[in-house]
Each structure stands twice: as C-alpha cells, then as structure tokens.
C-alpha cells in the first residue's frame, strides 16, 4: 500500500480520535453535566474532527491532482541539468556547422524577401485607380507563394541538418560513455511536445512498475529519477499532512471548554463550505471568460479583429508555422458563421414543426395512456449521446441523402453535407423543443381554454387562436434556447458536415462550423501560441458570446412569460 493511502487512513483514524477527544473532553470539562455546556458534546467532537481532518485532506487532494505533474517537472528539469554538457556541445556544433550557418543565412534572406514581397502584395492589393494592376498582383503573389515555399524547404533543410548534428552528438556521447541520464535529458529536450509527454508517461509507468510502450536505458534512468522525486514528494506530503492533522488536533483540543461555542463554529464552517461551493459556479464562468479572452486577445494581436469577423476566407493550415504569422488573411471566419447558420437553420426547420406539433398533440389531444408512452420516446431521443447522432448521420442519413439525390438525377452529392448534419441535428433538437414548449403550453391557464371552448371553438381553433398566441413568448424563448443549443453542438457537425470551409448557400455541399473548426484546430499536432491554435479560442469566444446572449434573452422572455400566468 502506498504511503499516501496509509497517511489517509491515519488521518481518518485521527479524525475519529479527534471527534472522540473533543467530545469526551467537553463532557469531562463539566464533569458530566452536559447541560452546562454551551453546545452539545457532539459538536465539540465535530469541531476537533474537522480541524484535524479537513486541512490535511485538502493537502492530500492537492497532491493527488498536481503531484504527478510536479514530479514530471522536477524530473524534466533535473534531466535537463544533467544534459547541460551535451546541450552545450550540441549548440557548439550547431554554431560551428557551416551548413547550418549557410542555411540560417539563406533563411534570413528569404524571410526578408518574403516580408517585402508580402508588403508589396498588400500595397498593390489596396491600390486604387490606375495603380491597380491585376497581372502584376498575380505575379507578385506567385512570387510570394514561391518564397514561402522556399522558406519552408529551407526550414526543413535546417531541421534535417539539426537532427543530423543531434544524432552525431548523441553517437559521440554514447561512444564516450556519457551518463545515461544526460542522454535521457538530451532526448527529452530535443523531442516535440507530444513525444516529451509520451517519454515522461513511459518513464512514469516504468517507475510504477507498469507496462511502458517501449523500454530503453534512457527511460530507465528517467524512471529512477522520477521514482526518487516521487518518493521524496510523497514523504514530504505525508509528513506534512500528519503534522497538520496533529497540529489541528492539539490546537482545537485545547480550545474545548464549557463555554466554548462549538456549535456555532461548526455551523459557520459548514456555511462557509457551502458558500465556497457556490462560488465555484461563478469561478467557472470567470475561468471561461478569462481563458477565452486572454487567448483571444493574443490571437487578435496578430490577426486584426475585423479580418477575423468579416474575412471571407478560412484556411488556418497555411499559417502552420511560427514564421508565417497569419497576415495572409486566412482567418476570415465568415464561412464558419455562414456554415453554422445554415446548419442551425436546417435543424430548426426540422425541429420546430415536429417538436411544437408533438408538444401540442401530446398536451391537447393525446389521452393519458398515449402520453405516457410517447413522452419517454422523446426523452430517449434527448438522452442519446450526440456522438451517436453523428454516427447515425454518417452511417444512415448521409448515404440516404446521397442516394435520394442520385435517384432524382443529381449526382456527386457528398455524404458529408450541411443537409445531413442539419437534419440529424434537428432530430436531436426535437425533444428539446417539445419538452420546453410542453411546459409553456401547459402553463397557459385552463380558463382561457374554457373561454374559447365555451364560445364554440374547436380544439384546433382554440389552439391556433388562443393557446399559441398566449404561449408565443414562451415558445419563442424555447426556440431561442434550442438555437443556442444547435449553434454550440459539436459532434454531429464534426462527424457529418465535412470540413470544407465553403462559403456556399447550397445545403448539399459540405460546410464547416465554428465548433468543427475548434475541434480541428485543437486536435492533432498543435503547437501552442501559434495563431492557428489561438484562433480556436477566438472562435470559442464568439461561440460563448453568441450562446450567452441568446440564453440571456431566452431566459428573460420565458421568465416574464411565466410571471404573467403565475
């Protein structure tokens, strides 16, 4: 059993002990006449127990959450220190390598030229009147593209050379029997982020006697360092936890007296805990707003806000590398907004009639038996995970649409289209609309129905002329909530809408949405701080703002409506 588990057990024992100590000390303080105590003996017990256990457990929890990454960091920095010599000699080699120098020089020149070419292009693009020269612009643009490609090649050459040198340094180090830890550090330092993670994860597995994806002396070395750090940290935390628990026990025990207001203390602690819990909800919102804002601001420092909001072209892949900051204008989000709007519209065209009509049917026409069987069906639709809907779109709906259009003579319809995503999303939204409008319709007072029936209106007349108009604000609110839901839906569109950032009004083409692009940008290889990655946060911010505004309006409308008939 790990030491942490033992400590946790020990703290539980101490906690129980604390309860007992507090209680019995309180009783003995008044020599058994508990009526003279300010608080019941149990509260004295709770008081001691809380101060014994709570801080120590918080420490353990923090260790549980952050312990691993702390150990990783300690290990990595130690390995890096061990590899200092190797790194130095590698850097030396780099600096001395004529080929690298040549490439670097060429890179600098190319960069300069490409920058001036970009400036020329921009200048020409904004030119007016007689200065306008499409042919020259085209030539300049192709020159620029050419330069960018050359830059990419040169960069590749540089990296290749760097790798060769790195391998050489490594070979030499192995030959001269350099310490394994230095090799490990070197390997860790010079691998990409993903590999680094994997390296550390493997080392951790070896350190905990788990199954690593591979074995190497370097990994073993890293694992032994990791083991050392982990056990040191564990012991430290364990000791600290025991000390804190004991300290709490001793301090609070000494406070117990007949007049001690243990109950008030305990209750205010409980209240404080409850309050802190409710602050977490606020913290979450604050966290969302700040993380989105912070990263978005960094994005907007390289790509102007107007370009982002009004640009017509979205191709973030161009700006894959750091030296190609997205001035190329590939971060125009309009195609994403348009795609999102189109899919949402299709979804609403499906969901609003079906959802609304079934809510009306179930609440106004259906008998109780029918209602009891049909409602759960809608609830099941609501409970189906969206990834399942996505698969349904991919497996059934997409091919069906394609087959249908092929049948009526329209060939080359893609399986992943706005239509397929929109239809399936509509299905997902149906239960949402029907349950919300069911609530709304049921809160229309019976007296209005009676009034209408007493005038000799039929059911559909009553529904169409009295109930719907009366419920309209609530229904609009529900639809707004549903729209916000559709806008933020991710998996269905990721799986069914395709990825082409087409600016099109044709629902049979594949389109892309805000959420799809966030997923595309943040899965797979990513380097942090590149505009490509940061743009995901800008998109997230847009998404958050859109949905927030719609929710606030919708909730207001629905609430007003409720108040009207309450």
């Amino acid at each position, binding site marked *: 059993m790990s030491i942490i588990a033992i400590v946790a057990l020990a703290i539980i024992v101490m906690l129980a002990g604390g309860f007992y100590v507090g209680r019995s000390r309180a009783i003995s303080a008044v020599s058994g006449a508990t009526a003279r105590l300010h608080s019941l003996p149990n509260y004295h017990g709770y008081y001691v127990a809380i101060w014994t256990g709570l801080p120590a457990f918080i420490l353990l929890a923090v260790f549980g959450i952050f312990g691993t990454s702390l150990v990783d960091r300690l290990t990595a920095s130690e390995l890096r220190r061990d590899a200092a010599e190797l790194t130095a000699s590698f850097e030396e080699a780099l600096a001395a390598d004529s080929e690298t120098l040549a490439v670097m020089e060429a890179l600098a020149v190319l960069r300069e030229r490409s920058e001036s070419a970009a400036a020329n292009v921009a200048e020409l693009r904004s030119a007016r009147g007689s200065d306008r020269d499409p042919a020259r612009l085209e030539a300049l643009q192709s020159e620029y593209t050419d330069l960018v490609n050359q830059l990419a090649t040169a960069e590749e050459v540089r990296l290749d050379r760097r790798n060769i040198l790195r391998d050489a340094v490594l070979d030499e180090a192995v030959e001269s029997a350099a310490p394994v830890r230095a090799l490990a550090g070197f390997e860790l330092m010079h691998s990409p982020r993903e590999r680094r993670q994997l390296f550390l994860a493997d080392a951790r597995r070896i350190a905990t006697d788990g199954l690593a994806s591979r074995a190497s002396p370097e990994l073993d070395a890293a694992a032994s360092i990791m083991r050392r750090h982990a056990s040191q940290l564990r012991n430290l935390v364990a000791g600290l936890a025991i000390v804190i628990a004991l300290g709490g026990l001793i301090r609070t025990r000494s406070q117990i007296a007949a007049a001690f207001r243990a109950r008030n203390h305990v209750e205010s602690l409980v209240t404080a805990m409850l309050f802190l819990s409710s602050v977490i909800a606020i913290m979450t919102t604050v966290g969302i707003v700040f993380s989105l804002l912070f990263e978005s601001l960094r994005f907007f420092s390289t790509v102007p806000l107007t370009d982002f909001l009004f640009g017509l072209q979205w191709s973030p892949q161009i700006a894959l590398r750091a030296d190609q900051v997205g001035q190329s204008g590939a971060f125009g989000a309009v195609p994403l907004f348009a795609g999102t709007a189109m899919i949402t519209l299709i979804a609403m065209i499906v969901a609003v009639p079906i959802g609304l009509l079934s809510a009306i049917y179930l609440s106004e026409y259906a008998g109780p038996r029918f209602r009891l069987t049909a409602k759960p069906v809608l609830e099941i639709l609501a409970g189906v995970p969206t990834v399942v809907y996505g698969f349904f779109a991919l497996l059934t709906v997409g091919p069906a649409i394609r087959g249908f259009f092929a049948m009526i003579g329209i060939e080359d319809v893609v399986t992943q289209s706005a239509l397929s995503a929109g239809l399936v999303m509509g299905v997902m939204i149906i239960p949402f609309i029907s349950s919300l409008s069911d609530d709304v319709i049921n809160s229309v007072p019976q007296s209005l129905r009676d009034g209408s029936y007493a005038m000799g*209106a039929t059911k559909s007349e009553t529904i169409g002329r009295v109930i719907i108009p009366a419920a309209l604000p609530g229904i609009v609110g529900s639809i707004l909530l549903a729209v916000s839901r559709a806008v933020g839906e991710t998996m269905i569109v990721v799986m069914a809408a395709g990825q082409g950032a087409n600016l099109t009004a044709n629902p049979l083409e594949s389109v892309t949405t805000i959420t799809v692009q966030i997923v595309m940008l943040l899965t797979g290889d990513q380097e942090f701080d590149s505009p490509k990655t940061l743009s995901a946060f800008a998109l997230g911010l847009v998404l958050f703002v859109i949905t927030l505004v719609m929710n606030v309006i919708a909730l207001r409308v629905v609430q007003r409506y409720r108040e009207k008939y309450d």
Partner: protein
Amino acid sequence: MTDTPLNTPADLPIKVTARKVTVSYSGKQALHDVSIDIPDRSVTAFIGPSGCGKSTFLRCLNRMNDTIDGAVVGGSLTIDGQEINDKTIDPVVLRASVGMVFQKPNPFPKSIYDNVAYGPRIHGLALTRPELDEIVENALRKAGLWDEVSDRLTHPGTGLSGGQQQRLVIARAIAVNPEVILMDEPCSALDPIATARIEELIDELRENYCIIIVTHSMQQAARVSQHTAFFHMGHLVEYGSTEDIFTNPRDTRTQDYITGRFG
C-alpha cells in the same frame, strides 16, 4: 322528489328542460336526477352551498363537461325541445347558441376588438369587415362597454379593469347572438360598483335572452332573478319563483340556507 319539476313557471315559454340529469366525475357522482324547466327571456338563479353541483349542472347546458376527462352525463336535457346530449348535436353548434361567462374574467390575450370578434370570426358570421365592426360595436353597446372602450379597441383586453373585463367577456358571449347565457358567479371577483353595473346589464339582457346565473349572494339572486333553484349535495331541492323561494320556502334545507344557518 317527483319526476315533474316543482312549481314550473307557467307564464313564459320554456327554453330548457332537464329530466333526471346525473353527472359523475371519474365515478364519483356529483349530480343526482335533476329535473327542471327553465323559462325563456328571464333570469334564473342557481343557489346552494359550495360543492352542491351548481356549476356542474350549468356546464351540462353547453356540454362543457365534455372537455373534462372522466365526466359522464346522464338523463335528458333539451333546449327548445331538442335533445342536447344527443350524439347528433354538435357541441360546437350548441356552444355557439349557449354562451357562458365564468367566475374569473378570462379575456384572451388579444385586443378588445379581437376578443369580441372571436366568436363571429370562428363561426364565420361576418363576411366583411364593416359587418364585423357592426357586430362588435353592437355587442359592446349591449354589454355597456362601448362608451368606455370605443377609443381603444386595439388595446389588449387584459389591460381593462376587472369589472370591464367581465363586461368584455359578456360582450364576447353575446356577439354571436346566443339563445341562452350561462353565468357562473360572474360577480364574485368584482367590487360592489362593478357588480351593480353587471347586474344592471343582466337585467337589460333579460329582454332577449334566457339567462341562468349561479350566485352565492342571496341578495343578488333576489335582485336579478325571476326564478330561483336551490341545490344541495347534488340534488335540486326546490325550484320556483324567486319571491316564493325567499319568502316562503317549502323545504327546511332551503329555509336554513337562505336564513344563513348553513352553507
């Protein structure tokens, strides 16, 4: 209780005839064998303690019990000699000719004009806008509301005062020119002045309609009605001219009730 109604008023033509009407809600009987003849062009009041079945009987007259799940109506009910519980009688047609006013004013969330025009519109009674305007104006005039609202017909009906709302609802009911008007405690939510206004209105409407009103106020029954029926625990105990019932009740239960000994 005999099969024939008690003390049938002879001087007026009979509009509504009930024979052995029973009602049960989900098996629980709320009305037992009610037989009554209600004359035309007069006001008939239903009185009785709470839960005795007044509203239930009233709702039989325009088949509003149909809208309640589990309500079963038995016996025979005729208006102008025509059986209304018959399958061939359409509740829509029946309800168009039997208007109803509820305890709490329930104007639709529409404009005053649209509220009054509701009946004529759904039944297709007016073919042109001027025709409809005329119907609306007439109904509002009859309900004594025209002078107060003629300048704000497009305002929402829910924005009127309680008494005005109740008159609006009455206007809505008479806009289709029904034969019978049922009123279920139409004044219980109103202050005395508004109540007086409505009572006046009822008295005017008596000229043209058969009006049946449920009330908890003895004074009101005495003021507005020509005939009064006393219900007790689902039974019709006594029925006769209002004067007789109030001055000379035959049944001790009636006497106890109107003298305020129970109820």
